[in-house]
């Protein structure tokens, strides 16, 4: 496959990862942070698939990306449950307003 194409894929992945990272760091809403994390994981998937071009067996990276997707789904399920639970208590999921632990 064309090497320049996979280079561009790397740049896209890196950009996606950085956007996800920036979202996690700057946003204070729990759901938005979760979305940022998902972006990071998708960047990883893109990378894995792109790199599997050079893998003689071709499959490892793609299989790994399947694992990542499945685990991300499981994580999201747990995360949403937790967010709802917190919301029931304090009617907010903005992280800066959750200060009970700081005491």
């Amino acid at each position, binding site marked *: 496959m064309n090497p320049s194409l996979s280079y561009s894929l790397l740049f896209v992945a890196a950009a996606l990862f950085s956007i996800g990272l920036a979202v996690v760091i700057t946003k204070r809403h729990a759901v938005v942070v979760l979305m940022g994390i998902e972006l990071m994981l998708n960047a990883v998937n893109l990378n894995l698939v792109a790199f599997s071009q050079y*893998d003689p067996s071709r499959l490892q990276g793609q299989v790994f990306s399947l694992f990542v997707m499945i*685990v991300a789904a499981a994580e999201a399920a747990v995360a949403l449950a937790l967010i709802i639970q*917190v919301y029931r208590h304090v009617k907010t999921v903005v992280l800066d307003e959750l200060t009970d632990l700081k005491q």
Partner: protein
Amino acid sequence: MTFQTYDCLQMLPIILLSLSGIALLFLGFQKSRALLLPATLLFLVIAFVANFLDWGKTYMYFRDMLLVNNLAMIFTGVVLLSTFMVVSLSGSLADDEDAQPAEYYAILLFSLVGAIMMIGFENLIMLFVGVEILSVAMYILTGSDKRNLRSNEAALKYFLMGAFATGILLFGIALLYGATGSFVLSGIGNYAHSATNAGGSMLLFYVGMFMLLIGMLFKVSAAPFHFWTPDVYDGAPSLFTAYMSTVVKTAGFAALLRILSVSFSGVYDFWWVAMAVVTVLTLLIGNITAVYQASFKRMMAYSSISHAGYLLIGLVGLSQASKPAIAFYSLAYSLSTIAAFGVLMLVARNRPLNAAVFGDQTTLARTDEHYDAFNGLARKNPLLGFVMAVSMLSLAGIPLTAGFWGKFMVFSAAADRGAVWLLVVAVLMSAVGIYYYFRVVIAMYFREGQTDTIRVAPFYRIVLIAATVLTLALGLLPNLFQGLI
């Protein structure tokens, strides 16, 4: 070394734990909860025995996905033992109307599967899956006290931080895969050896390596990636804090040890400075912040950070000596930590905080976990006092206890590499550690308090005594353990 390849049904502990976890879920349908605790303990004992069936041999399982050797078996033994102790301290769950012990026990057993994968992984897929199984289980258990806002808040924070760390870890794995074309540890190790000799750019490899390490350091709460730890440990129910600070840490360090010694030992010169800096930071932040805590439980959170620092010393001085050192240290640390939390839970249960002080419903379930709660404990409860005192001595690394030999062994590993300055930092911080560990001893033995005699269930008592005896026995005869490796 020749590996014999067997097929999947031989990897007994993982399979047994998964099956028994499911079995526990079914047991949960029964009305009576009395059976759950003994059943869980029985499953753990069976897994413990099954784990050591392969003693003395080295096998690769699941088409070179997992390695089982003596070291892995010892680490697995340590996490199973820790879990056994934590579970046996959980008797009060059965009386709690809102708790779902069947689910908790099942999740604990499932999470152990993840821990075992982290201990023996040969392929980075296994590392990732292991880390996630363990972490997701921990997110749930942290938030298991649903009435308590602190517990929920801790779980949410833990999740966000943990998932963030996973993202970094995964990106590192992806870059390593791009650089080396392999997820297999030995394949990455071969690349590191040959590429350093061949020269040329290894940027992708190094970036990947550091991201992977950062992800793992997050999980073992090494500074500067530790900031989630105090809140999470403080907010989680004490039982699961004990589990987190022992099993998760042991598995995390086993994983770090494996990847550093197999894959990255060829580029030791490249990462040791960074790891040494992390170590020093972890020791400084963990110990010094622990001094300022008023809550015992929060102190234990910082103490677990500082112990991550001591374990990191063993990694910085990476050598053959590091393996038994980290295994022994994990064991010593786990025994004392669980015993300390065991006493804390008893003390705290007897001292519910007055809700009126805080004035809102959400704090109803809070109990007093401050140092003051221990005042005068040893007068009326000499056994609890003694158990706690030995735990604190062991955590502080005083001779006669297992903790001393743990420190001795990790220090020896670092001394071989000539990192004496690191040891000086470490012992200075140990002296600081004495300060906060002994606050509890002082409160228990020398201060006056109105503690009543605390009723301790017989089995609970046996576990506490066993942990103490084991700590002292390993302190007097460390070769008991050394003979195993």
